[in-house]
């Protein structure tokens, strides 16, 4: 127990704890990522911007293929050919991430930013023990640390993520653990170098609901202790409501709406967000209500439509929606939306205000 407390303190220090709260940890500006395939260029991420503060949890929601994972991979420099960042900037603690050399990137990955993936089985090496892999992760960034010290820290980390019998677990192989346990090991491995930013790419999608609840509780606890920033990628709006402070909604590589979690759920201001919320049955519904689906199919990213990508499926689409991408409109504090309807509303408001003067 004492170990765990000591460890908590270390984690606190590592994220500069309170004094850093409120400052920007990560700034992404107009990020553009394309995949150059034989069939043509796929604009997987088409100019998205956001800031993440220390201690903040941001959810990125969107359908498969909306570019949410690609966006995260480019922060941590894991984009693989034919994918390429073709524009924009990523600034982490004041440093330009895109300008880093290969070696710098290797040092940056793991120590400053860690990532946990959807399927822990494919991310853990099946032929090494859990302990071996945790120690390796630590030694990769801290060359000085002795083997005993590394093993001790690895065990502390496993305790922190709620794994019992740590000494036995250290000697076990990934296949001997259950899915939930493996995901805990992944989280422990991600946190072992005390990163300031954790990117979680659908960490609970492959898990059962009861195990998902365990992992979400764990991530909330760790987040409270460490004050690190978390980017939580998911398509489950329930999970977003549970864990996130703010939400970015992506559709076809564009960020269509962004705002505090309450605003997104109670005052959605983009038709896609509205549609998503309406199309889900609620677990606390008292009686039967027919679902209202979003008609149509997701965008073919090879031939995206002109203008707003959601326009072909949007029931409120206007002529201009099919021609030009709408600009962002501030609809509340820290809440912005890219929709021509909001632009129209704002113009009307201005007109009214002008008329009164």
């Amino acid at each position, binding site marked *: 127990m004492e170990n765990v407390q000591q460890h908590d303190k270390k984690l606190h220090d590592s994220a500069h704890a309170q004094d850093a709260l409120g400052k920007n940890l990560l700034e992404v500006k107009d990020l553009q990522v394309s995949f150059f395939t034989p069939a043509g260029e796929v604009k997987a991420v088409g100019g998205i911007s956001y800031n993440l503060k220390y201690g903040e949890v941001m959810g990125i929601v969107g*359908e*498969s293929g909306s570019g949410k994972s690609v966006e995260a991979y480019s922060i941590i420099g894991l984009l693989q050919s034919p994918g390429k960042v073709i524009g924009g900037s990523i600034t982490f603690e004041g440093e330009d991430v895109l300008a880093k050399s290969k070696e710098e990137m290797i040092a940056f990955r793991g120590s400053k930013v860690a990532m946990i993936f959807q399927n822990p089985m494919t991310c853990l090496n099946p032929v090494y023990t859990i302990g071996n892999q945790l120690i390796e992760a630590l030694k990769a960034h801290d060359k000085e640390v002795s083997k005993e010290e590394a093993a001790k820290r690895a065990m502390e980390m496993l305790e922190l993520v709620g794994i019992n019998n740590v000494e036995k677990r250290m000697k076990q192989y990934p296949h001997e653990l*259950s899915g*939930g*346990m493996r995901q805990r090991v992944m989280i422990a491995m991600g946190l072992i170098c005390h990163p300031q930013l954790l990117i979680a790419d659908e960490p609970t999608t492959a898990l*059962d*609901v*009861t*195990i*998902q*609840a*365990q992992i*979400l*509780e764990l991530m909330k606890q760790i987040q409270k202790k460490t004050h690190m920033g978390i980017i939580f990628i998911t*398509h*489950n*709006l*329930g*999970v*977003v*409501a*549970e864990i996130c402070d703010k939400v970015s909604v992506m559709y076809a590589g564009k960020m269509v709406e962004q705002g505090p*979690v*309450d605003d997104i*759920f109670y005052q959605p201001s983009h038709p896609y967000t509205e*549609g*998503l*919320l309406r*199309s*889900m*049955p*609620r*677990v*606390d*519904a*008292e*009686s*039967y209500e*027919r*679902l*209202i*689906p*979003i*008609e149509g*199919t*997701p965008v073919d990213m090879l031939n995206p439509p002109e203008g707003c990508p959601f326009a072909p499926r949007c029931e409120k689409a206007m002529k201009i929606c099919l021609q030009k991408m709408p600009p962002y409109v501030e609809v509340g504090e820290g809440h912005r939306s890219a929709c021509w309807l909001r632009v129209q509303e704002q113009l009307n408001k201005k007109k009214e205000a002008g008329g009164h003067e």
Partner: protein
Amino acid sequence: MSENKNDILVQVDHLKKYFPVKGLKGPGVQAVEDVSLFIRRGETLGLVGESGCGKTTLGRTILQLHNPTSGKIVYDGETIFEGEDPWQADGEGRMVHVKVPKPQQVNMLPYRRKMQIIFQDPSASLDPRMTVGEIIGEALDIHKLWTSKAERTERIKELLGHVGLNTEHANRYPHEFSGGQQQRVGIARALAVRPEFIVCDEPISALDVSIQSQVVNMLEDMQQEMGLTYLFIAHDLSVVRHISSRIGVMYLGTMVELAESYELNREPLHPYTKTLLSAVPVPDPEVSRSRQRIVLEGDIPSPMNPPTGCRFHTRCPYATEKCKQAVPEFKEYGPDHWAACHLLG
């Protein structure tokens, strides 16, 4: 066929399905353990539970895609399987194989026309080398449901229209479709033989959120139009509750609770149902902040070596000595509300 709407289409009594494990004595994986249920004509019975709890095995065993180990299955008044349990506990609680008479089974082919299944992963359940027209047509050929080629083509077109696809899609291959469209093909294939009963095995889990509701609505419409009866298997409780009239909750091969779907949500009786309900994330920030969550410790035990007594006792916060020893009886505690728990008295 009786006109009574409330009559029972599928009845399952004490069904067991064990998968033998090579090199291991004993019953092996006890995937379905003593499950009894009935499905009314025209209703949707939902089945929920964690992965590995046997919900898919139960669905497939009812269709006899797996050979049941023992129990009884009655479809529309006719017994299609009946067998005695070959695994009996000896004096020390070990399971031993005893000689029992050969189970009674019927030729399933005529029943295959009445009972169909929609699979979870549409891309894995459609033959990649057959066109959509061939996939749907094959079902018609097997059951000889056409008299002329023209009628066959007509029926394929009709089915494609039914599930919201174009008639020219009949000449395309599965890989040319998106996941949602592939699932529609899977549904059209199941509907081709005009079945009465369909096991929907996680039909929407592999689909995107915005497509899920389209498919759910389509399944509901078809049920209305054709008077279908569904066994709807999924792990997403909110979707199951939306589509089902009653829900069965499974844990490690056993049915722990079965009730009308909104009743189950309001008044869950079994501790496991309560946990499951509280674990489902609600897409509403205020609700999820205010509600109390019961977090279960540990993982689901192995069905190869299930706990004695109530199978949930290793993780149940209220477990008593009795729970470790005796298997709780599956009893009716309210109108149409069944549960198996010692705590309920």
